Structures are given as C-alpha cells and as structure tokens.
C-alpha cells in the first residue's frame, strides 16, 4: 500500500528531484558563502533591460547587471553541460507557444511586482525564514495549481 502511494505521488521516482534540488541549493550556497549575495533568477530580466533602457526602474540594477548576466549564463551552460553529457540530450517542449509567451509575460510582471520568483523567494527567501517569501510562494503555488487545472479542464493540451 505504501508502494502504491509512492507510485501515485512520485511516478518518476525521487532521485532526480532530490539530487537536482540539492544542486540548486549548493549553487545558491556557493555564491552566498563567497559573496554574501542571495541569488535570484528574475532580477536578471530587469537588470539586463538596463543595458538598453534608461528607465529609472531598471537603472537601479546597473550595479548588479554584469554579475547577473554571468550567473544566468552559468545556468544556461550548466544545464547544457548536463544535457549533452549524462542527460538525455536536447529536446523541445510540446507546450504551445501562445501558452509560453502569454505565461512568460505574466511571469515577468508578477515576479518583478512580487519581489522575486521560485529562486529568490522559493529558495533564498524561504531558506531565510522570510514570512514575506513564504506568503508569496504559497500564493503563487495555489494560484498556479488552480490555473493549470482549469486550463487542463477546458481541454487545452499540451
């Protein structure tokens, strides 16, 4: 019965998830221990816009924009290094472009308005015991679950 429950909750096992989560944590801790910086992936969006836009909202990130590019480049190349060696190689998502584009716009607005995303709030903020981050994560998890189930229920797939 426990085996049934396990197969229901984790049909693809736990190893890849736990190992991946541990590495995400280790990457975060590596930067924090050497620099004191709590990394987050979504500020890169605004800090990078400061290269091409003079808006004051983006200009505040000029001081950090270079290392944020370097960190994001590390994410891209780290994922590539895994995929093309031990991983499954390249693949393309089947999720429809309109879902990615519209969802992406809302992710861009929401993460910037809400002061962080799955890494800034979800990993560093929750790891810091920040109530603000716990509330933000609970909010986006609950809303995302509702939206994903609704979208599936009205027959949008993939």
């Amino acid at each position: 019965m426990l085996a049934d429950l396990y197969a229901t909750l984790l049909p693809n096992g736990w190893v890849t998830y736990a190992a991946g989560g541990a590495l995400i944590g280790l990457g975060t801790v590596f930067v924090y221990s050497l620099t004191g910086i709590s990394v987050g992936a979504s500020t890169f969006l605004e800090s990078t816009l400061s290269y091409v836009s003079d808006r004051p909202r983006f200009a505040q990130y000029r001081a950090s924009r270079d290392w944020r590019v370097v960190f994001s480049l590390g994410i891209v190349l780290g994922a590539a290094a895994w995929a093309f060696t031990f991983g499954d190689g390249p693949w393309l998502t089947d999720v429809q472009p309109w879902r990615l584009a519209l969802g992406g716009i809302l992710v861009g607005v929401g993460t910037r308005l809400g002061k962080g995303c799955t890494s800034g709030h979800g990993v560093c903020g929750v790891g810091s015991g920040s109530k603000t981050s716990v509330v933000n994560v609970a909010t986006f998890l609950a809303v995302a679950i509702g939206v994903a189930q609704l979208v599936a229920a009205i027959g949008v797939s993939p």
Partner: protein
Amino acid sequence: MVAKDHEAHPLFLPAVFVGGLVFGVGLAVSEMARPEVVLDFLQFEDFGLLLVMGGAATITAGAYAVIGHLRDSAPLTGRAYERRLKSFDRNVLLGGTVFGVGWGLSGICPGAAYASLGIGNVTILWAIGGMFAGAYLQGWLRDVVTGDGSPAAAAEVSD
C-alpha cells in the same frame, strides 16, 4: 541596504559563474526545465517539484543559519552575511498571484527557462521573450503610473 555590487575581486565573477553552473546543472537534473514536468506537478500527477524546492530551500536554510557564525563577512566582497528578507506589502500578494497565473499557464519560471534554453529547447524563447516584455511592462507601469523612479522607491532591490 545598498551594497557595492561591482565587486573588484578577480574571483568574484568566476565564483558567480561557477555557482550559476551548479544551479543550472541542478535545474537540468531536476527536470524543472521541462514545462511538462511542472504542469504535471500542478495537476497533482507528480509531486517531485516539492522535493526540488524543498531540498534546495533546506540546504540553503542550513547554510544561511551557519555561515554567518563562521565568518563576519564574505571573502570576495566583504559583505555581511544577511538573510534574504523583503518587506511585506500588497504587491507581494498581487505579484505572487500574477506570477502564479503565468506559471500555471506556461509551466515555466525564469531560472528554469534559462536552463531550458541551454538544453536546446529553443521553443522556450517564446517564454523568455514574454518574461522580458512583462518585466519591461511592469517597469514602465511603475515609472509612468506612480512616478516611482525615486531613490527611495528603488532602495529595495528584489531578486
């Protein structure tokens, strides 16, 4: 607190890069770069995402609790070891809600999107383009509607 982010130490950018590499490997190994896997979680078909976020947050929590007691400041920057604490206001709820709609619709978040691109999933550029457009739209709205370009408003840097 506004810290000097243009760090002069020659190992600063290499350290950030290595951290990013490990972070990116983690996103690839954990399958979070695959929107389908995130959508499976949101539809209660595979709860692996909880292990990923929980595992990463647990390791981070342990390090954040310990490192500050071992050293006064970070070796490459001289920064104090501070926790990541943001002030709470209604934007935290509003932003979380908008992010949740986008994440539930697309199955992708910023870090996972960069990793997905590295894996060769060029289709994810739709999402990354959307994220930049959304970030610009939000910045434009803040500047134009609220005139929020003041140093005071810019004091709290977010991730």
